[in-house]
């Protein structure tokens, strides 16, 4: 075996493979050496009268290799003439070997394209020094991607040798130059590229618009509370429970700033010694802090080991974490901001597997690019959408009503709205969804009506044995029973309806 390992050929092959990979990765991701004529001309004008390695640039010309590939030729003050390829220009700007005149900096926002920009450093300083708030927009692949928080500005500084990121670079190889200290205790480090992009985005606000809330301090978590299980949707048998995260003050941001993610971890089973996948549901709270020990819970419905942790990778973020069984997680969590300085994370449970299983409907056959939702992608409200949203609104309104008689009446109105929606549908998915919701309602209503009539008769009996029931009320209940009879699915329901009708008569 050792003979084989020490065999020279193995070394040669390994080296060759490594070199091939290195070459291929270079050609695939390297910054281009040449650019278009238009960009080359513009870049030449920008570089004119700048400095290359402390030597003044006398003039810059545009040259080409083929029809499309342009590069620059620079004449320096020492009389030398140099061929400047685009990748080299980028490298020199990153290491400050190439400096523009008039306190400007050349930036290449993309590592793949020769598009460039010129950062007017004086404009940047003026903008950042007069700013009272900074609009922090989260980058790609962050859980808060493209979301923005408006944070109060405390101090701006140019990086100095004692700063942690002095002379260090970002993933594009650009040096960090500036640091912005914010009132919530976070620090933002900027490269010239960042500064250029932030100026473009108007991320520094000298005056904050009236409707914008500036976050000047973090939200500090005080405690976690359990919210017990309760019915959310009687039609689909969906139950809701929650965890309330109580903070030290009002939460001045929208619920969409608190996203969730599911993280899979392979943990070693202490009994078997094997690695087993465990899933953790995490709710992220930006601009938040955990200042003391917050007790979590070992169990809460299908959540296990509920705890609040500080995010070690991001500044001022806390994570509400719970272990979940992926089979129990049918619906995503829903965030609600309350008026009592807290955020409620709602979780849903249901034993109805049809919620996530594809139905055997012709409309569900995915031939080509069928729409995924009942709504048209162009954000225009159609007649169907108006009717359908009205029906959904009525169903939700009914579910919140405590009086079961009112609830049934609202369901009747929702049925009418669903009929209207079905009549105005223009594609299969719309009519399929309208009819599906109608059928769910019709399936549940006999049960609800029977219970309502039973409770109404019981209430009348309890109130008084002498007084007769209001004939209008009886008529209404009878009407409900007629409806229930039409859609009763079991023999037991039919029998109950007949008995109740005879009692009411």
């Amino acid at each position, binding site marked *: 075996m050792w003979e084989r390992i020490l065999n020279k050929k193995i070394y040669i092959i390994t080296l060759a493979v490594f070199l091939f990979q290195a070459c291929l990765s270079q050609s695939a991701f390297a910054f281009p050496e040449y650019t278009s004529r238009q960009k080359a001309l*513009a870049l030449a004008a920008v570089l004119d009268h700048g400095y290359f390695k402390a030597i003044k640039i006398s003039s810059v010309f545009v040259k080409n290799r083929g029809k*499309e590939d342009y590069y620059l030729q620079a004449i320096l003050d020492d009389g030398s003439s140099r061929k400047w390829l685009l990748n080299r220009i980028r490298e020199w700007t990153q290491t400050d070997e190439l400096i523009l005149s008039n306190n400007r900096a050349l930036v290449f926002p993309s590592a793949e394209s020769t598009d460039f*920009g010129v950062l007017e450093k004086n404009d940047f300083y003026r903008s950042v020094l007069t700013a009272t708030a900074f609009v922090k927009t989260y980058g790609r692949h962050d859980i808060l991607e493209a979301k923005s928080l408006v944070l109060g500005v405390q101090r701006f500084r140019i990086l100095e040798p004692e700063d942690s990121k002095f002379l260090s670079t970002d993933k594009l190889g650009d040096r960090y130059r500036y640091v912005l200290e914010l009132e919530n205790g976070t620090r933002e480090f900027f490269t010239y590229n960042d500064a250029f992009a932030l100026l473009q985005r108007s991320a520094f606000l000298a005056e904050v618009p009236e409707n914008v809330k500036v976050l000047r301090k973090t939200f500090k978590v005080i405690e976690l509370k359990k919210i017990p299980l309760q019915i959310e949707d009687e039609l689909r048998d969906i139950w809701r429970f929650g965890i309330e995260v109580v903070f030290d003050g009002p939460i001045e941001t929208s619920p969409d700033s608190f996203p969730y993610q599911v993280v*899979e971890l392979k943990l070693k089973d202490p009994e078997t010694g094997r690695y087993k996948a465990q899933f953790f549901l995490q709710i992220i709270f930006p601009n938040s802090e955990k200042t003391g020990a917050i007790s979590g819970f070992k169990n809460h419905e299908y959540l296990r080991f509920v705890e609040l942790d500080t995010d070690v990778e991001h500044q001022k973020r806390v994570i509400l974490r719970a272990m979940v069984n992926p089979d129990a997680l049918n619906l995503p969590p829903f965030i609600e901001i309350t008026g009592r300085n807290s955020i409620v994370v709602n979780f849903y449970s249901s034993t109805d597997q049809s919620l996530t299983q594809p139905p055997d409907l012709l409309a569900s056959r995915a031939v080509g690019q069928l729409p995924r939702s009942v709504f048209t992608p162009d954000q225009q409200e159609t007649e169907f959408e108006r009717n359908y949203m009205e029906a959904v609104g009525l169903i939700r309104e009914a579910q919140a009503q405590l009086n079961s008689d009112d609830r049934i009446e609202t369901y009747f109105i929702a049925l009418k709205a669903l009929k209207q929606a079905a009549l105005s549908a223009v594609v299969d998915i719309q009519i399929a969804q309208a009819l599906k919701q109608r059928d769910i309602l019709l399936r549940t209503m006999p049960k609800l009506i029977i219970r309502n009539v039973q409770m109404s008769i019981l209430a009348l009996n309890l109130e008084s044995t002498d007084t007769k029931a209001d004939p209008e009320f009886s008529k209404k209940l009878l009407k409900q029973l007629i409806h229930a009879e039409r859609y009763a699915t079991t023999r037991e329901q039919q029998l109950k309806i007949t008995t109740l009708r005879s009692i009411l008569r």
Partner: protein
Amino acid sequence: MKQFSSTLALRLLFMFLSATLSLSANSGHMLDRFELFVDKNIPYLTFKGFFDPGKFPHINITQGSSKTETTVILPNTFINNILLPERDITSFALSGILDKMSLAEKITKTENGEINFLVTFTVSSKEKHFLVLDTKRSDSRQLTFALQRKQIKVVSAVASEGMQITSPVKAELGPVKITPREQLLLHPVTALMAYRHFDQLNVAVLNASPNLGAAQSFAVMLDRKQKRTIEKRMGMKLNIVNISSVREQTILPKTKIYFHANLLKAALILAEVLPGEQVLEPVPESRNNKLSTDVEIYVGKNFE
């Protein structure tokens, strides 16, 4: 013999790496046909065909020689010569908006041996219309440009030369306005009433690992080894629609599965079946409209 086998292995390895590289780098668009239509007084020019939404940011729109002319460069694009044989179009279904449109396909070979292909089309409008890429109406099957009357100011690196760098992205700072439709879609229970179940899951596999062929290997593993298990558990057909590398050269420590709001369950099943550790996140709101797939898997550094 030993020497021969090692040389052969080396050659095969080189061929495999080259093939992987070409697969990951050479994706693009194909123009089949175009349509011009008016939607709420805004005219739209839509190209139908096959598109890579990840390459939309590379589309370059510039003003032509006159104020009524706009030139659009679509990199990595071919024209389907059978379906779209004409190069100069002067008759439009919707009269009064466009005067002329000319298409030009350019295929060049660089000194490195790489093939560059692009399509340039120039549109002359009767009024002073300017073309703006409409990402909301663009996906893997169509590419839409809105014809706006007033020219949108582009952010320029060097204003005098009019070079376009990026479009300015201004964050919405005020309180978020949620429409009734969004409200309905945001709540998990009401969203159940808005989405349909379907029997095919369109998956894109993108490379976000330092290993060049990771997306390809991942897709092969998904398609050949795990497909049946996944399909059986999800009750949906698994359809890999795209395999490519990530444009911004992002390296993710863990494989990330982005899913649409109604597809948490499907994403969980995928994560359970796939080897290694995964992170699952709903598709960010900013990318929601651009995504033509149901699930996007970014293969991370942890995939071996």
